[in-house]
Structure formats: C-alpha cells, structure tokens
C-alpha cells in the first residue's frame, strides 16, 4: 500500500514537471506550438479560418483554360485550394478571408480574359 502511494506521488511529480516544461516551451516559442498531445493547444486556436466559395467561370474551352485559371487563382496569397470544373463551368476556391477577398479572386480570373460570376458559398 505504501509502495503504491509512493508510486502515485512519483508519477504526479513527473507529470507536474512535464506540464511546467511544456508551459516554458510554449512561452519561448514564437509560433506557440507545443510538442504535447491531448488538450487543444495554441496551434489549434491560431489556425486561420478558411472559407470556400464557388466562382462561376465563363469562357473555359478546354483543359488548358482550366489549368490557367487554377494556376492564377492558386498563386494569390491566401488561397489554399482550387478545384476547377469544366462540367460545372466554375472554380471552387478555399481561401483565408483575412488575406484575400472573393473580389480579388474574381478580378484575377477576369484579367485572364474569362468572365467570372458572383462567388457564392460552397455547399
């Protein structure tokens, strides 16, 4: 019984040291990332909120048009994912609203010579 108590105290001691170390590391790290599993960390909280919109695109005639639209939109800062569909005649764009706006995406497509319609939120 005494041995069990001593074992519990030792475990609790090491757990406390681990928590202190984790706190120190998180304070020192500029990104706020902690190498610990379990409870949500600063990394999860600081992940940017992403939005996905569907932009209708008129004038795409072939695969090369789709590739051009994809490359241009993907090159915009803040855009993380682009999927172009010739069948649906549009592009589904996932982006960070803090860094890029749907208007910028539309302007970039229009600049290529295609006609982008009003973006709507992806279902």
């Amino acid at each position, binding site marked *: 019984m005494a041995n069990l108590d001593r074992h519990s105290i030792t475990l609790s001691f090491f757990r406390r040291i681990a928590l202190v170390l984790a706190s120190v590391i998180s304070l020192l790290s500029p990104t706020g990332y902690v190498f610990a599993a379990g409870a949500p960390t600063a990394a999860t909280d600081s992940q940017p909120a992403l939005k996905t919109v569907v932009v209708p695109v*008129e*004038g*795409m*005639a*072939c*695969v*090369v*048009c*789709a*590739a*051009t639209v*994809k*490359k241009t939109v993907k090159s915009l800062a803040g855009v993380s994912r682009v*999927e*172009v*569909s*010739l*069948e649906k*005649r549009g592009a589904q764009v996932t982006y960070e609203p803090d860094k890029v706006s749907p208007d910028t995406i539309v302007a970039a497509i229009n600049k290529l010579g*295609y*006609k982008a319609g009003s973006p709507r939120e992806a279902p």
Partner: protein
Amino acid sequence: MTLEEFLQPFASGLDHNTLTSFGVTFLGGIVASAVCPCTLPVGVGVAGMASASQARYRYGGLQVSTAFFAGIVISLMVLGTVAGRLGALATESFGRNWALAMAIVSLIAAALAFWRPRMNIDALTTWRRPGVLGTFGYGVVFSLGTSVAPRLLLLTIAAAQARPEQGLLLAFVFGLGRGLPFLLAGAAGSTITGLTRLGLWGRAIQLVSGAALLIVSVYYANVFIELL
C-alpha cells in the same frame, strides 16, 4: 468573345433540326477552336507533321492532316452518343491525365519526326499506314480534352438534343468546324513543303517539324504540372 456569348443568341434555334442549327453548330466548332489555347500549338504541330510527311512521300501531308481531322470528327461523334457521361471527361483529374497523354504522344511524334529521315525507303513505306493511323489516334486524344467543354455547353443550351440521332448529327457538324483549322494548318504545311526544293530543305523541314512537336510536348507537360 466567349463561346457562351456566341451561342446564347441562337439558343432557341439550336433546338430544331434546321439548317440554321447546323450552321450555328458548325460556326460554334470554329469559334471553339478560335478561343481554345490549344489550337495554336497543336495547329503548329499538325502543320509540322504534315510537312514532315509531305517531305517523305507525295500527298503524305494531306493524308496526315486528314487523319487528324477525321480523329477529331469521329471522336466528337462518339462523344455525341454518350452525352450523359461527358461529365466524367470534364473533371480536373481527367484533364491532368489527358495533358500527360498529350505530352507523351507529342513527344513520340517529335521523336519520329527526328528519326524517320534516317530510315530507308522500304522502312518508310512500311511505316506509312501506322503513321496515318497514329495521327488519327492523336486527333482522337486531342479531341477528348479540348472538345468536351464546348459539347457540354451546346448540350446545356440546346436541351432538346436528347434524341441520339440529332446529338450524333450535331456532334458531326460541330466536329467539322472544330477540326477545320487543323485540316487547313496541315494543308498549308504540306503545300509549303511541296513548293520547296526537298533536296535542299528536306532535312531542315524535318528538324523544324520535330522541334514544333517537341514544343507541343513541353506545353502539355507544363499543363500537367499546373494541374497537380
């Protein structure tokens, strides 16, 4: 002008089997070629293939450009009968694989253009038929990636094309318009070759033809990378 803008005013006329609908569909094929960025590099490639074939045997250029043209028309006719499944050919993943296929086929065509002048007459005669058939296949592959979107648009605008025979006929007419620029490019390439003194220019024509096809191959390899 986009293809949508061209076709929209004729939307009601496209529903019927009239001369107007065939005329508009044919012009739609030509407009689709005009607005498609693939037309210029592949047109140069077809002209190069036609020139290289013309340099080897009489009417070779005409045979090759007609085979490419026939590949486009027949591919579109087949696509016209499977209208309901065209969507599968308009996805990004299909486009990626198609661009890779175009890069490989163009590279093979370029290699043949560089290599064939070294072949003897007997070997060239043996290769004539596979060469024409290969160009036909090139036209089919090309058409799959460049004609599906305009065909889908036509189907969207002309909703009454549900009848298979009408779909087939309009696909044929559309294919004539879509393939015509390549037929003309091939005819121009072979005519220019026919006018030159082959003894002096033969090797140069082969090199230019091979280089043109090599550029087409790099162009599609780049498209493949952009779609990754």
